[in-house]
């Protein structure tokens, strides 16, 4: 096995990150060296993973790589293994893309901050930790990687310790995060106590036979541990605090990558370790947690006054979508869930970068103080609108493609099982999508449109580097939106099949090659071909603009004079001279908030911000999980 054969690529991908991290510690002082190292490691691992795609995804091959070359021997896997199947590679690609774009963005974004070398070290450690978690085939190794990424994330959240609440957010994240990690550790150990092995594939082979008291507790512990990492419902205030305070490029990683690692852990746990997804209650648990976090976080987002906290709550609600879809345990459901996870990383990354751009230029993300930035920052506005349109599911963009698949899967599942609960889930999913649209209309009115306050008069466009990163995400947004079949065929289809038959995963560890049965790719029931639609829209738009221009649509009169605005071009203020009055932030959607005022006041008190309450929720969630699984499993 020569050093360059594809077998080694997974370990190279992980090591590139860590190598980059440690080299930057050495040569970090010099600006150019630092940037080259960071970009090199980021692009390198992305290239390696992309080269794996044809082999693993379409080819259906599973790469197992034994550390220290101690292969499977004597019935027991002693060495630590890396096992890359379609699911792992899918998540790995996701992580690599997000890290790459965020790396490019943070080069210009972090210019004004001090001790930048430390930033890049932590950044690459976080990336390496997640890559390790996603690719590793060994349960304890996953725990180690979880610890690394939690440390890196906590340190990065507290990176700008002067920012409002950064330290507090980091502390809370650390406390509840380490409770979660301890649960994962305890769960791993209890599993080890049963079958005395840590290799993931072997565990998946043995555990289903040993389901009794201790393994049920282990299942609960692992489930709660990973949902802490994914910031699901009881733990979502952490995410809001962490994103609110962290620099934008880090928030991209936290929301795009960290939450996906939690989801990856849950999928591995439920579909591979315990293979219990055929049990109805387990599906109910996943779908219930998913839809609750979907609805709670979107309503909380509507009540926010800060741009990044709003985005943070939205990323949890989108994760709720992914979990609900994965919880349906049908081929279409899982592929829709994974497709949505990918889309979420892309458009959420774009939105956080836009928030970073706004913060970089105006110094604040408070919705009540901003307004009318589209006049000064047109590119950022267009990019933000693409991100907002895709997250709220406006047709041509990618958010709609995946959400539409999720509704299909949920409703098909409802019809198959005849259980009206799934119907409720579909309706909640649709309403949540409209609430997402509402909150992003609120953001666009309070930040980009409306009146420009005087203090931001001299705001100018963000430097080109940041806009390049944002446009990268924007192009991805449009592409993945327009080609749902291609994405399902190449990326999410194989991953869904990998999830649905763990036997190949287990066998691959033993070196036995199980032929991938050609299960049909998940087919959507409804019909949606975005390219045709876009063609139609283009033609009719062209026709309408042509007619408009013919009919003197441009009979426009502009305000020619400079500063002093003559009465004709001033806003209509019922006769008065127009004064600065921005309608935005808190005073939008009074109708909705008034009807739900009791719900909102209850939610406001619930998120008290005291560390003890969050810890209490974690403990209660753990107790509930253990009790529920004792009964069910």
């Amino acid at each position, binding site marked *: 096995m020569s050093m360059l054969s594809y077998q080694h690529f997974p370990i190279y991908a992980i090591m590139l990150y860590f190598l980059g991290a440690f080299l930057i510690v050495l040569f970090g002082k010099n600006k150019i060296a630092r940037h080259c190292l960071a970009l090199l490691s980021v692009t390198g691992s992305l290239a390696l993973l992309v080269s794996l795609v044809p082999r693993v995804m379409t080819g259906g091959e599973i790469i197992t790589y034994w550390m220290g070359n101690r292969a499977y021997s004597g019935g027991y896997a002693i060495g630590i293994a890396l096992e890359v199947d379609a699911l792992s590679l899918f998540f790995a690609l996701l992580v690599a893309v997000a890290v790459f774009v965020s790396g490019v963005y943070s080069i210009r974004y972090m210019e004004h901050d001090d001790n930048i070398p430390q930033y890049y070290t932590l950044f690459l450690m976080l990336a390496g930790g997640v890559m390790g978690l996603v690719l590793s085939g060994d349960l304890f190794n996953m725990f180690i990687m979880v610890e690394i990424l939690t440390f890196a994330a906590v340190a990065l959240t507290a990176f700008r310790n002067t920012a409002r609440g950064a330290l507090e957010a980091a502390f809370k994240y650390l406390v509840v995060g380490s409770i979660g990690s301890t649960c994962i550790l305890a769960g791993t150990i209890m599993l080890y106590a049963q079958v005395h092995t840590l290799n993931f594939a072997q565990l998946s082979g043995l555990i289903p036979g040993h389901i009794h008291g201790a393994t049920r507790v282990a299942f609960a512990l692992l489930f709660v541990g990973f949902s802490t990492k994914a910031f699901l419902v009881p733990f979502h205030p952490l995410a809001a605090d962490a994103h609110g305070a962290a620099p934008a490029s880090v928030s991209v990683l936290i929301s795009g990558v960290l939450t996906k690692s939690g989801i990856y852990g849950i999928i591995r746990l439920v579909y591979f370790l315990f293979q219990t997804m055929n049990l109805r209650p387990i599906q109910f648990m996943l779908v219930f947690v998913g839809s609750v976090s979907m609805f709670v976080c979107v309503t909380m987002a509507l009540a926010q006054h800060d741009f990044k906290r709003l985005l943070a709550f939205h990323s949890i609600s989108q994760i709720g979508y992914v979990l609900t879809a994965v919880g349906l345990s049908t081929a279409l459901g899982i592929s829709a869930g994974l497709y949505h996870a990918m889309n979420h990383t892309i458009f959420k990354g774009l939105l956080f970068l836009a928030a970073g751009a706004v913060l970089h230029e105006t110094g604040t993300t408070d919705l009540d103080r901003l307004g009318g930035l589209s006049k000064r920052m047109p590119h950022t506005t267009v990019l933000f609108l693409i991100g907002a349109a895709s997250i709220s599911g406006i047709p041509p963009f990618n958010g709609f493609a995946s959400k539409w698949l999720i509704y299909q899967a949920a409703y098909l599942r409802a019809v198959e099982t005849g259980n009206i609960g799934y119907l409720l889930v579909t309706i909640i999913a649709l309403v949540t999508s409209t609430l997402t649209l509402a909150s992003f209309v609120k953001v666009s009115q309070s930040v980009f449109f409306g009146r420009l306050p005087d203090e931001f008069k001299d705001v100018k466009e963000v430097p080109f580097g940041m806009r390049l990163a944002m446009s990268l995400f924007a192009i991805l947004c449009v592409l993945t939106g327009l080609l749902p079949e291609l994405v399902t065929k190449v990326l999410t289809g194989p991953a869904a099949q990998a999830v649905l038959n763990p036997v190949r995963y287990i066998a691959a560890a033993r070196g036995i090659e199980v032929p991938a049965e050609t299960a049909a790719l998940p087919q959507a029931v409804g019909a949606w071909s975005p390219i045709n639609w876009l063609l139609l829209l283009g033609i009719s738009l062209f026709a309408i603009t042509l007619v408009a221009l013919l*009919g003197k649509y441009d009979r426009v*009169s502009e305000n020619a004079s400079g500063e002093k605005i*003559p*009465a*004709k071009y*001033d806003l*209509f203020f*019922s*006769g*008065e001279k127009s004064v600065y009055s921005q309608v935005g932030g808190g005073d939008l959607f009074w109708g909705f908030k008034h009807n739900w005022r009791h719900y909102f006041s209850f939610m406001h008190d619930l998120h008290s911000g005291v560390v003890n309450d969050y810890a209490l929720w974690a403990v209660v969630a753990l107790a509930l999980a253990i009790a529920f699984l004792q009964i069910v499993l």
Partner: protein
Amino acid sequence: MFKKLIEESTGKSPWLFHINAGSCNGCDIELVSVLTPRYDAERLGFKLSGTPRHADIVVVTGPVTQQSLNRVLRTIEQVPEPRCIVTMGSCPQSGNVFRGSYAIAGPLSKYVHVDVDVAGCTPKPEAVIDGLVKATEILREKRRAMK
């Protein structure tokens, strides 16, 4: 052909914007009564609009008090181009009984070219309809004169 169609429909769908420059509300009630079933100006396409931006004909009532002067002028300025200004009742034309009072900024014609005056201290709705129809003819000429 298109230009003639526009000109034709400019006359046929004039939208009103009513400015009360300190009137005793006698003319205001009368103007709104023009839209009631008995006189029904909507037959001729008249419609009250909420903002000067949507308006073609501006109807001014009241003796243009000092306080309301620059507000009236600013609102009239915000009406898009082919527009007509109609003064209703004798107050805007001459200040009527309030003439000479320190609170009156004088007849409207001192500040803005008034197209149609509808005299009468609360002119009858029929008179108002006449005035508005006259205004639509002037609108049509202005539209024809535009580029």
